[in-house]
């Protein structure tokens, strides 16, 4: 089985087709030139391509292709009700629903909104409980806007899922989205007068481990965190090998819940990889310690990887930079190969199986 990487860029979507060994890659694209593709996936349930595509003139869209990107269909109804007083800005993240609900697609957007489609993305409706969340007045936009960028479904409970919004924090539902509980205990918001508020945290990326779904990881504006109790509490993990707690992307090992990968940046005021070193940091012990893995990566390099720019599958790890390079590793990050370069600034990277 080969790999398909979907690289969403500021100037359209590129596809990278990799062979079974992830050693030979073929570039296709751009598809949808002129659109900023904040996120793109290949839905494992039906093989369709689905993208969160934005244009600074025409706004945010969800688009779907059932023919490998030859033609696209734009979703209808992607707007917010007038009485909400909110205006839809950019769309950020596409998340397929569960395998037993093939019609469902979730979509995260700005300003801190979640949409659900019940017809494979033909139409969307905003999730009212997020739109009208009682803490919404306390939410503030981060530098990227008030984006809902992470949507995670708990495979062990059909009613439980998580969303993360910058800068509102992590929220968990136990009733299929009817209500959402802030899940930010012990997560710092160092930029606020109260550094541990109920909401207002600037989560940059949230991932749940599919084999141990009570375990979640988050790369935050203020540190890297792990939770082992469904986000009831969080443990800050920095100061043990990481050069910085600041960064955006996060990747996991689908087989080992103790393994995680981050790509730190110097800090909020200088968003490049620390010390001119484009490096991935890996923990093998649940975040107790971290080690640099960077074989084959260019040096020096002042890189930056967006929150959606790091992904993984059963065979490898892949990340993409704002300077248009895609790197792949089949050795748990020990050795990297540049598999594409000189693409437009890359906003997102997702891996899918392809044959």
């Amino acid at each position, binding site marked *: 089985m080969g790999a398909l990487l979907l690289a969403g860029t500021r100037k359209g979507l590129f596809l990278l087709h990799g062979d079974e060994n992830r050693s030979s890659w073929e570039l296709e694209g751009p598809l949808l030139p002129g659109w900023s593709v904040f996120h793109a996936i290949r839905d494992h349930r039906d093989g369709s391509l689905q993208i969160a595509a934005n244009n*600074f003139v025409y*706004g945010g869209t969800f688009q779907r292709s059932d023919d490998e990107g030859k033609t696209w269909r734009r979703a209808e109804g992607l707007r917010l009700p007038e009485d909400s007083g909110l205006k839809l800005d950019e769309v950020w993240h596409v998340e397929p629903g569960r395998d037993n609900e093939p019609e469902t697609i979730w979509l995260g957007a700005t300003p801190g909104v979640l949409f659900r489609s019940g017809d494979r993305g033909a139409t969307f409706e905003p999730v009212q409980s997020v739109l009208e969340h009682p803490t919404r007045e306390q939410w503030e936009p*981060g*530098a990227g806007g008030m984006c809902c960028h992470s949507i995670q479904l708990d495979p062990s409970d059909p009613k439980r899922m998580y969303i993360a919004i910058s800068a509102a924090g992590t929220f968990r539902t136990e009733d299929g989205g009817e209500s959402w509980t802030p899940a930010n205990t012990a997560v710092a918001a160092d930029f606020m007068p109260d550094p541990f508020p109920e909401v207002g945290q600037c989560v940059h990326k949230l991932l749940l481990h599919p084999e141990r779904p009570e375990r979640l990881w988050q790369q935050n504006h203020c540190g890297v965190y792990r939770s082992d109790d469904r986000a009831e509490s969080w443990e800050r993990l920095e100061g043990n090998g990481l050069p910085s707690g600041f960064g*955006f992307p996060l990747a996991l090992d689908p087989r080992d819940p103790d393994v995680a990968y981050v790509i730190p940046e110097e800090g909020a005021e200088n968003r490049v990889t620390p010390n001119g070193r484009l490096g991935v940091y890996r923990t093998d012990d649940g975040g107790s310690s971290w080690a640099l893995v960077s074989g084959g990566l260019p040096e020096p390099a002042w890189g930056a990887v967006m929150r959606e720019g790091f992904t993984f599958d059963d065979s490898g790890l892949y990340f993409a930079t704002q300077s248009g390079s895609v790197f792949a590793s089949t050795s748990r990050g020990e050795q990297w190969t540049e598999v594409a370069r000189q693409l437009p600034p890359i906003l997102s990277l997702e891996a899918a199986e392809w044959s």
Partner: protein
Amino acid sequence: MVVVLLPSLLATQAGGQARFELEAATVGEALRELPVADLLFEGGELRRLVNVYLDGDDVRSLGGLEAPLAGVEEVRVIAAVAGGTTSRT
């Protein structure tokens, strides 16, 4: 009958069609008939960076979306010259 012309990015979203011949009383009616109408409007108004010209005149100086199309031959949709977006993380 009026001819509506779309820029290339919108034409791609309209299935490759850049030229439409429509019957409509006002420019708003004509634009809402287009298969890309959802990309042109926000809250019922033209998006800020979408410009529309009736035989070369900016529709915003002609009464906006209610501007009549009687005697108009061509409606041209053009994206404003607005530069790029700010860097987003």
